[in-house]
């Protein structure tokens, strides 16, 4: 599969470009786009990519590209994914699929109409430690599960060493829930099934922050969205859980995902596949389960590109489906409304 990479920011340079060589036998990086000519040119050179563009339309018009990876900032995901479908390309999109449920549904329907494959990050359900945790859960290792929690602390901006425009994470449609909370939320819903009802408190802990390095050093970046989210999740069938995501606190010793069963507990680090699973069973202490993984550490987003290639080649419905992404976006959208209106909301999109 000949792939075009759209967006060469931090995520592309840290998580995708250096790792794509692992699937080079199946996925050829044919073209790359960056708004910056200098960056596009140097990345093409560093990774031996044949063509580089500073105009998305030109990459999408490239007949040598069969599929694209949309790694752009959150606010432009929608337009670029729709443009890719219009150009007849299959799409792997970084999360979120779109900032609103309505836009996400539009994208899903457009893919179906065009008969194109749409694979949606995050790849939580393909991460090997999450796959293993689900196997342990399904095998009854911890008994019936009635309670679960997800926690993602995104650190306090300004972040050091981030080349991207940090303001994009704090504009309307972005924020820690849809940017980070989606990792544990995809894993929780992938393991326990859809959230039926949600209630939430969100707050804005800080109004702005000041950049401490880079060309815009000294600039004050406004925080336009809530940076502190706490969701209560009702999965139905006697299962409830919590999901917290924020950009107002530093790291935590708490596991990113924990499942509490009547006969034990499973704790998983969703974003770092090098970390072992912590398992506790009734009458025993904690034990660690190492899970084989391909990337040395961190999240393995390449699994999503690999998944796209497989679905394009073999057909069938992707596991990283638009419907799962739409469900998670709907949960977050309803959480925002719950926080504003002070009541529990039913989640509408629950089929995936």
């Amino acid at each position, binding site marked *: 599969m000949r792939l075009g990479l759209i967006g060469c920011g931090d995520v592309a340079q840290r998580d995708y470009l250096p790792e794509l060589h692992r699937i080079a036998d199946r996925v050829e990086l044919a073209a790359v786009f960056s708004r910056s000519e200098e960056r596009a040119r140097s990345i093409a050179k560093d990774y031996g990519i044949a063509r580089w563009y500073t105009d998305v339309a030109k990459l999408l018009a490239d007949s040598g590209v069969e599929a694209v990876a949309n790694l752009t900032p959150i606010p432009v995901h929608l337009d670029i994914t729709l443009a890719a479908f219009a150009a007849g390309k299959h799409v792997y999109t970084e999360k979120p699929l779109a900032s609103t449920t309505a836009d996400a549904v539009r994208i899903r329907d457009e893919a179906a109409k065009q008969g194109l494959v749409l694979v949606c990050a995050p790849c939580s359900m393909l991460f090997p430690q999450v796959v293993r945790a689900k196997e342990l859960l399904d095998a009854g290792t911890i008994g019936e599960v009635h309670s679960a929690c997800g926690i993602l602390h995104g650190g306090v901006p300004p972040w050091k060493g981030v080349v991207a425009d940090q303001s994009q994470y704090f504009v309307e449609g972005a924020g820690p829930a849809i940017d980070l909370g989606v990792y544990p939320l995809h894993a929780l819903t992938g393991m326990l099934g859809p959230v039926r009802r949600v209630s939430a408190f969100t707050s804005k802990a800080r109004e702005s922050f000041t950049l401490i390095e880079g060309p815009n050093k000294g600039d004050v970046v406004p925080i336009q969205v809530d940076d502190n989210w706490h969701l209560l999740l009702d999965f139905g069938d006697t299962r409830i859980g919590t999901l917290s995501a924020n950009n107002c606190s530093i790291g935590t010793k*708490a596991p990113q995902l924990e499942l509490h069963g009547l006969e034990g507990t499973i704790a998983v680090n969703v974003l770092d596949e090098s970390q072992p699973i912590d398992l506790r069973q009734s009458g025993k202490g904690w034990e660690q389960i190492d899970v084989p993984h391909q990337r040395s550490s961190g999240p393995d987003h390449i699994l999503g590109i690999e998944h796209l290639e497989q679905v394009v080649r073999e057909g069938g419905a992707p596991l990283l489906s638009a419907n799962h992404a739409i469900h998670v976006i709907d949960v977050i959208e309803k959480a925002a409304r719950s926080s504003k209106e002070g009541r529990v909301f039913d989640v509408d999109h629950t089929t995936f």
Partner: protein
Amino acid sequence: MSGPLKAALVGCGALSQKGVLPHLTQTDAKERLVLEAVVDTHAERALETAKKYGVPHHFSSVDTMLDEADVDVVLVITPIPFHFPIALQAIQAGKHVYVQKSMTQTVKEADVLLAARDKAGVMLAAAPGFEVCSTTRAMREVVGQGAIGKVCVAYTYTLGFGHEREAQRTGEGALETVDPTWYYRAGGGPLPDVTVYALQLLTSLLGSVVRVTALGNKTSATKEWGGKSIPVEIDDNAVATLEFASGALAVAAGTNSRGGSRNPWGGLALYGTGGALEVTDVHGASGYPLAFEVTGQNAELFSTTLGEQPYIDGAHLDLQEPHVYADIMDLSDAVREGRPPRASGEQARHVVDIIEKVLESTRTGHVQELTTRFTPG
């Protein structure tokens, strides 16, 4: 007042058997407080308890005990729904009172109790009273000094175990067949039974909660005990989000999943814009947080031992529920010294307010505003 206080213990159930009577019959405890009477509506259980622990009098009614026994203090260690009427009756009879958690089921009851306390001029100590523990004060200092910046986030996960499997409920004879049914009825469940500890700690560090939202359900329709089926009438699985007056948001879970959390049981983690404070060790028998780690700009490790805590040494170190014992001893010293007990009724009332509003939110699906306020320290 000189010499030990004379006390009556009401409720000879599982907690009293495993965690209160063994402490109070130690020599050092008797220097502060001696048990004059035990009361249980189960007459045989009251008698057996008096015999086993050498208590001079036993009663099957609180009325009779208050009429006939010469006591200064009443220890209310009954199932939660009986806390309020018995504590009120004892206060109105002019007794000092220690009441187990949760103090009452409603704020209304708590208000009545505190007003009666003030009118009678007696002292009221209300569990869980983590104020006695030095870690609580050390953590409050860290937060108060701004060592972790503005506190925005807190988590606590209290995973309960139910009560039907306890030794005092699964043996033979009056002292080992204590019925756990009440725990699955109104007034019971993990929120007032175990989450109450976490809420006590949270409010000790962050002050008043102003709003809550919550979800809850029943993990099963029935529980098994002694070959009988107990109907589960209350939610035994709940999650709540609390908004503090300071703006901090906290997540608290109270569920009967037995596995436990990777986070220490009943532990607590606070996160601020400048760092984190995470409890790293919780003592199993007392629930006292014994160690915490501060990360960020003002990194610090704090640890203490159970033996460094007030009143807990010698035999008390190896007995269950030493925190209950410490609170009772603190009340006896408070009476002697004429100072308020550390386990304050005002804090207990605020925690009751949180629990009452969490339950209301699970029922209605609407955010609930608290009516009480509490200032720690």
